[in-house]
């Protein structure tokens, strides 16, 4: 259920970047709604971002990586409204907060459920390891090949509704219930009209006590989810329109995996997962680069070997960002 939601590459034209992380654990059976973190363009003061994800489920990969269909007559979807704000803290430092609001819509042949709630919020701080604009039109010198590199830390805060809250059943879930700290590195290079971006993220969950499962109190225990790794490669092409607005087309490939967790010191295999996905992103930016409209489609292939212990989903995202200079 993770996929990438990428901000428009048009922003890169200003030395800024749009990016990161993935939408979320979407299926209500797995927890949902973690958010997207934001990267503010260079020389901008702040940014507001609003996006809407529509994630539909199409079976899952079992623990052996074999693709399995959903039960007959099922139609499973999750919708997320993501509100984000990023602001500059210093010439090389910025911070962002993203909050998703999640709707779960699960229709089975014998059961129907529609629930909603706040998802897990993300707080992030990013360091830009460069001062000037790293986008060039021509490579005249080796210095023109130096990419824009970002180092970030993000904290996922369990503000969503998790299995450990006072909930009735798994259909209510909008979050995973764990704090997670991610270290993020992003390397971006633009030589117009082409752009390439690599992102790597490594996250560690904080262990927590559990004394309730789906509203029922149980014998307390300690639980941790496994370390999480995300790698994404994106290639984009920017068209400059007559009025100097830009249209950027991008393709991406993502690999996400999470190791086995831990329950009272024992290995918990049930949360170990893997997912591969591809994406297509279209971004339209005004000449001033203050408004960016985006549309993306993230697809996971419903074939064996493309993932493990995870739902197969497609995610359509529409969104808009406004940058304040």
């Amino acid at each position, binding site marked *: 259920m993770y996929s990438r939601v990428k901000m428009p590459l048009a922003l890169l034209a200003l030395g800024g970047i749009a990016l990161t992380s993935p939408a979320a654990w979407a299926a209500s*059976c797995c927890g949902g709604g973690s958010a997207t973190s934001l990267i503010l363009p260079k020389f901008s003061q702040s940014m507001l971002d609003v996006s809407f994800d529509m994630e539909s489920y199409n079976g899952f990969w079992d623990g052996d990586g*074999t693709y399995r269909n959903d039960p007959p007559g099922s139609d499973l979807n999750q919708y997320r409204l993501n509100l984000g704000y990023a602001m500059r803290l210093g010439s090389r430092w910025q911070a962002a*907060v993203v909050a998703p609001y999640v709707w779960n819509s699960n229709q089975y042949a*014998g059961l129907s459920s529609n629930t909603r709630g706040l998802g897990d919020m993300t707080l992030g701080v990013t360091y830009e390891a460069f001062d000037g604009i790293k986008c060039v039109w021509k490579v005249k010198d080796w210095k023109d090949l130096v990419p824009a590199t970002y180092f970030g830390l993000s904290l996922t805060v369990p503000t969503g*509704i998790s299995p450990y809250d006072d909930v009735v059943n798994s259909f209510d879930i909008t979050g995973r219930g764990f704090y997670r700290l991610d270290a993020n590195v992003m390397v971006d290079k633009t030589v117009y009209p082409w752009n390439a971006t690599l992102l790597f993220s490594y996250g560690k969950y904080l262990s927590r006590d559990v004394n309730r499962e789906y509203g029922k109190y149980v014998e307390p225990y300690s639980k941790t989810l496994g370390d999480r790794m995300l790698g994404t490669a994106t290639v984009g092409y920017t068209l400059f329109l007559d009025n100097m607005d830009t249209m950027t087309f991008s393709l991406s490939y993502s690999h996400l995996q999470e190791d086995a967790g831990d329950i009272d010191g024992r290995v918990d295999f049930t949360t170990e997962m893997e997912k591969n996905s591809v994406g297509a992103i279209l971004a339209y930016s005004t000449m001033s680069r203050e408004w960016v409209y985006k549309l993306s489609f993230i697809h996971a292939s419903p074939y064996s070997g493309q993932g493990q*212990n995870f739902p197969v989903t497609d995610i359509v995202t529409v969104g808009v960002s406004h940058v304040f200079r």
Partner: protein
Amino acid sequence: MFSVKLIWRFILMAVLLTSLLTVAGCEGLTDDLTPSGDDERPAVDAGTIGIQVGQQSPDFSMLDTLGNSRGLYDELSRARGVVLYFNMWCPICDAHASHMRAQVMPDFPDVSFFLVDYVTGSVANSRAAQLSNGYAGMEVLVDADQFVFNLYEASMGTTIVIDSAGIVMMNEDYKDGVKLAEVLSTLP
């Protein structure tokens, strides 16, 4: 390097955003922020009828995916105990069920294990899901109207163990299966 004013502005924005969304109707916001490890299980009067550990399970019956009626106490009369796993044919369910099938069931051949399908709504749909998910060799009960699901206040992954006397021995998430094996090893 940083402006203190800017940092406070960011914190204020985060707090405001959280507050707005909380006021918008989000429940259970703080439970996961400060998790509790306190044992808050309610006291149970042993011998009374109910679904808590130590209580006498109410009787029920369901159809299996071959169309046969299966009653709880009929099953208990033929086994050391009954295990019910509430299943919605999802990745976590599959991880649990495949682990139970491979790691737990072989050690307890005189216990009856059932997957309880509470989502597909019919014997035909449940049978199709059973076969497509590779569980032809396990018995699946069809809780078409979620009667047993609601009776046990169950959710995805809830695992119930009932001994041959009808006493509920376990009613919680499967997790890694260790608790299930421990409980089954104590069955009389």
